[in-house]
C-alpha cells in the first residue's frame, strides 16, 4: 500500500505512539480481508472506466468522475442519461435511487463509529464500498459493539476501504486510458453483473426478502422500456411494497395460528 499507507492515515487521524502498532496491524488486517473482492472490484472498475469513455466523455472528464464520484453502479446508471442529455435533477435522482443501499449501510455502520468526530464519520462513509461493507458485516456481524475494540474496528474498516479504493481507482484509470483497446468481445461487462450477484445472494435471508427481489426483478424487466432508467425506481418501490406485504401477511398468519 504505497499510496494509502498507515503514515498517510496517521496524518489524517492523529496517533499516540503507543497505539500505533495496534492501528497499523488492524489496518493491514483490513487490507488483507479485502482480498476475495479484489478481482470483482477491479473488473467492475475496468468496465466502468471503459463505458464512461465510450459514452462520449473526454478521458479527463472520465478521470474526474471516477476520482470524485467513486460509485460504480451510480456511474453506470447515470451514463446513458448523460449521453441522452437528460436534465441534471433526473440524473441525480436516478443515482440517488441506485445509491439507496448505501443509506442502509450507513445506518448499519453508525453503532460501530459513533465515538468518532463528524468529519471522520463523513470520511468513513464516503469511502464505504459494497464489498467493504459486506466484508465488515461478515466479520462483525452479531457481535456486540464493545467499546474496547473500537479502535481496531475503525482501522480494520479503513484498511478495507483503502484496498477497495486502490483496486477501484487503479483499474478505473486503466479502463479509461485503454477504452479503445479493450475488446468488447471479452464479455468483461458480465463480470460486473456477476459481482452484483455475489452481493444480492446474501441479502436473500427470508421469505419477504426473496419475494421483494423476485417482484423487483419482474418489474425491472417489464418496465425496461421506460425512459431514463425509471425502471429501477419502479422496481424498488414494487419490490419493497411486496416484501412488506409478505411480512404483514406472515404476521397475520402467525397471529391466527
Amino acid at each position, binding site marked *: 500500500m504505497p499510496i494509502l499507507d498507515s503514515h498517510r492515515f496517521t496524518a489524517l487521524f492523529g496517533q499516540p505512539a503507543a497505539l500505533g502498532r495496534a492501528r497499523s496491524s488492524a489496518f493491514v488486517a483490513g487490507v488483507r480481508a479485502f482480498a476475495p473482492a479484489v478481482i470483482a472490484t477491479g473488473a467492475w472498475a475496468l468496465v466502468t472506466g471503459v463505458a464512461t469513455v465510450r459514452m462520449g466523455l473526454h478521458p479527463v472528464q472520465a478521470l474526474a468522475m471516477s476520482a470524485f464520484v467513486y460509485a460504480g453502479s451510480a456511474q453506470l446508471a447515470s451514463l446513458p442519461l448523460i449521453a441522452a442529455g437528460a436534465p441534471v435533477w433526473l440524473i441525480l435522482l436516478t443515482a440517488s435511487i441506485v*445509491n*439507496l443501499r*448505501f443509506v442502509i449501510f450507513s*445506518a448499519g455502520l453508525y453503532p460501530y463509529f459513533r465515538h468518532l468526530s463528524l468529519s471522520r464519520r463523513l470520511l468513513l462513509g464516503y469511502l464505504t464500498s459494497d464489498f467493504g461493507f459486506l466484508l465488515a458485516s461478515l466479520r462483525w456481524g452479531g457481535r456486540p459493539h464493545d467499546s474496547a475494540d473500537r479502535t481496531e474496528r475503525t482501522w480494520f474498516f479503513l484498511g478495507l476501504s483503502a484496498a477497495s479504493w486502490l483496486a477501484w481507482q487503479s483499474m478505473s484509470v486503466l479502463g479509461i486510458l485503454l477504452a479503445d483497446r479493450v475488446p468488447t468481445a471479452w464479455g468483461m461487462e458480465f463480470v460486473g*453483473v*456477476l459481482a452484483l*450477484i455475489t452481493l444480492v445472494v446474501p441479502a436473500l435471508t427470508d421469505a419477504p426478502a426473496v419475494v421483494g427481489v423476485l417482484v423487483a426483478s419482474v418489474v425491472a424487466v417489464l418496465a425496461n422500456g421506460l425512459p431514463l432508467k425509471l425502471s*429501477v425506481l419502479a422496481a424498488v418501490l414494487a419490490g*419493497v411494497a411486496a416484501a412488506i406485504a409478505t411480512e404483514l401477511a406472515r404476521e397475520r398468519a402467525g397471529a391466527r395460528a
Partner: protein
Amino acid sequence: MSGLALGVVIAGLTLVTLVSRSLFLALGDRVPLPARVQRGLRYAPGCALAALIVPQLVLADQTLQLTLANPRLDAGLIAVLVMRISRNMLAAMVSGMAAFLLLRALL
C-alpha cells in the same frame, strides 16, 4: 452535454455519494428511524441490485430471452447457486464467468 453541465453533474454525483453513504453516520441518534421506514429500507438494497442485474440476464436487444439457450441467464443462475452453496464471492464469479464464456462459445 456541455463541459460546464457535465461539471455540475460530476459535482452533484459526488454529493450524492457523500450524502447517501454518510447519511446515518452523520445524523446518528438524532434521527431515530420509524420502524416502518426501517422495515422498508431493509429490503431496498436487494431490490435495487436485482433491478440492475436481472434485465442484463434475460434481455437481449430489448427482447425477453427466458430460455436455457441464453448463456447470460444460465451463467447468472450458476453464479447464484455457487454463491448460495459456497458463500464464496470468488468461486461464484469464476464459475459464472467460466460458464458464460463456455456457453457463449457452444450455444
